[in-house]
């Protein structure tokens, strides 16, 4: 039953996974975007932990410093290491009348949306993405399961070009 010869050998090789599945990587600059958004999420938490340490811990007689060290360590690891890894797990391929988007490693999802099934397309750009000249493409289908498929980390002009490619194929095939 298990005749999967071409399984990725080294799970932690950054591009082996995408290459073995015939997918192209997203822009590496997306790593910076992820890093900054992660930092924006983690810093308030870490600061909150420090405040808790300074203000509350002395009153309840707990160990001072433990919580804030742990929080800052966790934040540092989350900001430094994870984003690069997450970016390398994103892959996409456009062509043959379909868009293919893969993401994740522990839980990997590989989505294919045929262009003719696309209801409408968004190209979005957040403030951090704009900083690095990136956009994300959101494809809407009428399915309830995958009603939106998001592909982040595209150069802005590439995203626009992809939108045009897909738009040419959109047709209403409902009666």
């Amino acid at each position, binding site marked *: 039953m298990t005749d999967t010869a071409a399984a990725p050998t080294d799970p932690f090789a950054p591009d082996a996974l995408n290459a073995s599945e015939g997918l192209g990587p997203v822009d590496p600059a997306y790593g910076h975007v992820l890093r900054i958004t992660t930092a924006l999420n983690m810093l308030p938490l870490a600061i909150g932990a420090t405040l808790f340490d300074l203000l509350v811990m002395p009153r309840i007689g707990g160990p001072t410093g433990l919580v804030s060290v742990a929080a800052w360590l966790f934040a540092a690891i989350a900001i430094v290491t994870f984003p690069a890894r997450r970016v390398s797990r994103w892959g996409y391929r456009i062509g043959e009348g*379909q868009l293919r988007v893969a993401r994740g490693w522990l839980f990997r999802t590989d989505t294919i949306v045929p262009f003719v099934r696309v209801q409408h397309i968004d190209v979005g750009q957040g403030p951090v993405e704009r900083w690095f000249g990136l956009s994300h493409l959101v494809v809407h289908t009428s*399915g309830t*399961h*995958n009603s939106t498929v998001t592909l982040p980390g595209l150069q802005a002009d590439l995203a626009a070009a992809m939108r045009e490619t897909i738009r040419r194929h959109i047709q209403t095939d409902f*009666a």
Partner: protein
Amino acid sequence: MSDAAALPAAADEPRWQRLHPATLALALVRIGPRSLQFLPAVAALGFTGNWVWIVPAILAYLLIALAAACLQWMRFRFLVGDDEVVIESGVLSRQHRTIPFDRIQDVSIEQGLVSRALGIAKVGFETGAGGKENDAHLDAIGLDAAQALRTTIRAHRSTPVAAPAADAPESAPAPAEDRLLFAMGPRRLLVAGLFNFSLAALAVVGGGMQFFDNLLPFDFNIFNPMDWIDIAGRYGLDSWLLAHRWIAGIGAAISLLFIGFASGVATMMFANWDFRLTREPRALRRTRGLTTRTDVAVPVKRVQAAIVVTGWLRKRFGWHELRLQSLASDGEKERDHQVVPFGRIEEIDPVLGEVAIRRPDDAQAWHHSHRIVALGPIIGATAATIGGGIALYLGNAVGWLGIVAAPLIALIALWAARYHLWADIGDQVAIRRGWWKPKMTLLPHASVQSVDLKTDFILRPLGLATLVFGVPGGSSLASHEIPAIPLGVAQDLRARILTAGLRR
């Protein structure tokens, strides 16, 4: 008011219409349950000792509610134009909504008990925009006007689409108008109700009895064996009964069974009384209901998938249920359309034929999903064991429950894993799952909007993948997925389905 349906020959000047005046009566009826909101205020008045003010306060509340209903009625108007419906509503914030006929996927007509007495009906326009708040409705207009309105919109819809529909294979035989496909008589309803045995109502009744124990005029809980002993003792049977205590248990069990069956029959009767499924030129139309009669049409071309559901026991007797997943969804309460609630497989096949879906025959070879699908429940069972162990360690006897339940859960999961089956039959995929409540999803390749191929750290080392299909409409019963099949097979199937979808 029935000129809503008049063909728009002289539709130059806008002819705004209002809702049926009887709607106000309906609003009055609705104030009843809504006045529950007012209870806290009444309670507050009572507690502070201002008893005198309670009646005036209630009167004022009713008056305000009635005035609000009147205002809403006066500020609501709608217009049926050449090719659109315009609805204006709102007292303070006005809302103006235009719905082109082209975008109306279906018109549903619903009548509650009061509406039926008043001869009015609620008309819903399904536009395919997801969510309940997005669907416009007229609550309510006269029944004949509602039917005429639906005819108008349907007539409009069928004209421009007739040409492309001609090459569709299923419209070739040109079916006769309104052919009856399936109906349920009282006998069938009774049988269906018996299979509909449900202890859900029992829980409600039992809970209520516990709750109102002191309020009831008789002090008797039919679920309590001790009460049965008491009643026997009153008739001098106690000496005999104490020797035969099991009689009391049987008494409780019988009343339990009776309530289960009775509630099953009652819900089936109320929901499906005079069930009729007819084939109209472009849709399957379903009317049913005893107190609330609903009338829903499922456009044939919008049917995305079919789900055949049965039960462990009713399968032994050859009874099945057919649901159709359609783009025009039925609103919040029913996301897929139950077109055959209870029927023989020979009765279901013709209905499936009407929507161009076929059922795999008995000789169909089915592929199995990997046993790993039982992993989730087994992890749950392990957790139950650990939790039970901890509880026991802490001296809580409830822990035995977890420890006893865990192997049962694991065994059932392993057993049920054998029932994850799938088959690719030409232009559609058939997915079966479930042992206690077997269901078979028939999914035409052409309705697949997107395909996910999922692996994770458990499936990947085993060379497995899960396929998840994005299908319009959505169903409460079936997630369209084939879990844990070999990766190569999954990739092949995905490619086949997507090319089939593109060909259409």
